[in-house]
């Protein structure tokens, strides 16, 4: 059996007396691509925040390579775990090259300057995301998809073994959604990413974690997790799930939403409306 690279045990997160995450347990093997799904406010971002040490859980532990994450110092943790977040810098006229170059921060001492090798790795990362020709342009002038690619290039320069991504594909065109995820997958590192698009998650992930109201409801392959019941209990939608074979012969669940609320749902809404009046 391959030892898990990430293992999360009985994780609890409480903020302002509110349970954000309760008793989360899961593990991720090295090189896996894991999707994190769940409705808004389910705790996806909070779980990721615990993983990149922005928030400290009240109890439970997170191990990376069998070491508790609190035992890493700041820099060595930043060399192990990189994150692509929704925060977008603006108004500071940063050049694309400079944003990517920020990835070497945890590899550098205070006074040292960028070496030739650093420059090379920045160029390689830019090439990998296909933005070499735009490296001197201001970051703000890029399109949404290009901005995300810059952030991924920055993460590549960081040379992590675990990449965390918080909804990297929201607000992007379909083409870029696929492109970004394929790019993340091609890096060959372990990835934990939260998704809004369930079909995209099914198609790309090796395994899927379903969060709802701070609890981990399901953990397994897309085939096992994406079921009509799950979609109706967690997301509150009626949907059909069919299996489709992908180009490499795998069976991928495909979700078709029914774009009409059922009679009972509508009745419920009407009666709620009356109560409000």
């Amino acid at each position: 059996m391959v030892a898990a690279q990430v293992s999360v045990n009985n994780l609890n997160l409480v903020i302002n007396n509110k349970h954000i995450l309760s008793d989360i347990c899961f593990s991720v093997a090295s090189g896996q691509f894991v999707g994190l799904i769940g409705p808004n406010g389910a705790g996806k971002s909070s779980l990721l925040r615990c993983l990149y040490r922005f928030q400290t859980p009240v109890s439970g532990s997170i191990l990376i390579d069998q070491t508790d994450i609190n035992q890493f110092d700041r820099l060595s943790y930043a060399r192990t775990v990189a994150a692509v977040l929704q925060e977008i810098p603006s108004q500071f006229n940063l050049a694309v090259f400079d944003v990517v170059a920020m990835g070497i921060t945890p590899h550098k001492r205070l006074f040292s300057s960028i070496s030739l090798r650093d420059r090379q790795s920045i160029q390689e990362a830019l090439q990998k995301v296909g933005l070499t020709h735009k490296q001197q342009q201001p970051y703000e002038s890029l399109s949404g998809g290009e901005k995300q690619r810059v952030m991924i290039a920055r993460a590549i320069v960081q040379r992590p073994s675990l990449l965390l991504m918080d909804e990297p594909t929201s607000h992007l065109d379909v083409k870029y959604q696929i492109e970004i995820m394929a790019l993340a997958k091609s890096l060959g590192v372990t990835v934990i990413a939260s998704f809004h698009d369930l079909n995209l998650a099914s198609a790309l992930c090796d395994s899927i974690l379903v969060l709802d109201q701070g609890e981990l409801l399901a953990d397994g392959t897309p085939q096992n997790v994406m079921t009509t019941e799950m979609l109706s209990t967690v997301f509150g939608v009626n949907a059909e799930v069919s299996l489709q074979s992908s180009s490499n012969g795998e069976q991928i669940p495909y979700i078709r939403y029914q774009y009409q609320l059922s009679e009972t749902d509508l009745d419920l809404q009407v009666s709620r409306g009356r109560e409000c009046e």
Partner: protein
Amino acid sequence: MRVAASSILILVCLFSFMSALSIGAIHVDFYDVWLALWSYDETQLAQKIIVELRLPRTVLAFLAGAGLATAGLILQTVTRNPLADPYLFGISSGASFGVVLLLTIFGIQNGLAMSGAALLGSVCAMSLLLLIAYHKGTAQIESMLLAGVALSFLFNAFTSLLLYWSDPQAITAIIFWSLGSFSRADWAWMWLPFTVVLLGFLSVICFRRHLNALLLGDESAVTLGVNVHKLRLGMLLVSSLLTAVLVAACGGVGFVGLMIPHIVRFFISQARVLGMLMTALSGGLLMLWVDVLARSLIENQELPIGVITAAIGSVFFLSLLMFKKRSATI
């Protein structure tokens, strides 16, 4: 390109220094300026004017500009707010309050004592701000900005109250002080602004990667291994100290900290070392020329520095607004 830009800048700096020393009520030509700098002859009046009067002023003006621009750059970076300014955080209001207190309660009008009082006042304002912003351990940027604005109003209220009760002579002295001037420049205490500005600039260069990472956002900065809270606190201290010392040395000189980082950012990505160097140097150069203007615009009279910087600053901002609007409509 980098070498070219740097060498042009150094040449401009040298030229500006020489010009600033030669222009004034008594015109001294470049040759005499050169002589005064390298083979000082105390018996020559022109050389004495250069070394005893104009040189300290010019150096102080340059230091003030460079220091305030650096302080502005730091504040804009750590708050991720391009409108942040050393004066927004109540530091200069604290300084004015200190000076007013000295003048009205103790009746002292000594230049050095005024600087000391200003320093005390601004340090007091700065500690209050940090205390309020950090009383829960971590500071939210927004609450910090609001606390700074509130503090500056509070200090202004006290200052106005004291002024209301004081005699007209004190009021004139206060107004003259708060508009800023480099005429108090003196070699005796020049080491203080010099050391503080140098250290401030070095700390920016030293922590430039961490500061840049902060521009991505707090969470991203954490994932790059930056201790966000410590960095922000430390950098706030540096910029407050810069402002406090410079306000004490030359009074209220607004707009430089806000304007210069803005202009430089227009041309150079903020994350570059060159950009940081440019910010400090162009701040210094601007101040140097403002001082020359203040000395020479009206004969036999000195204009307050604050009037010139505020005038240039507001015109600059209006044109920036118009420019932005136009580029947005295209």
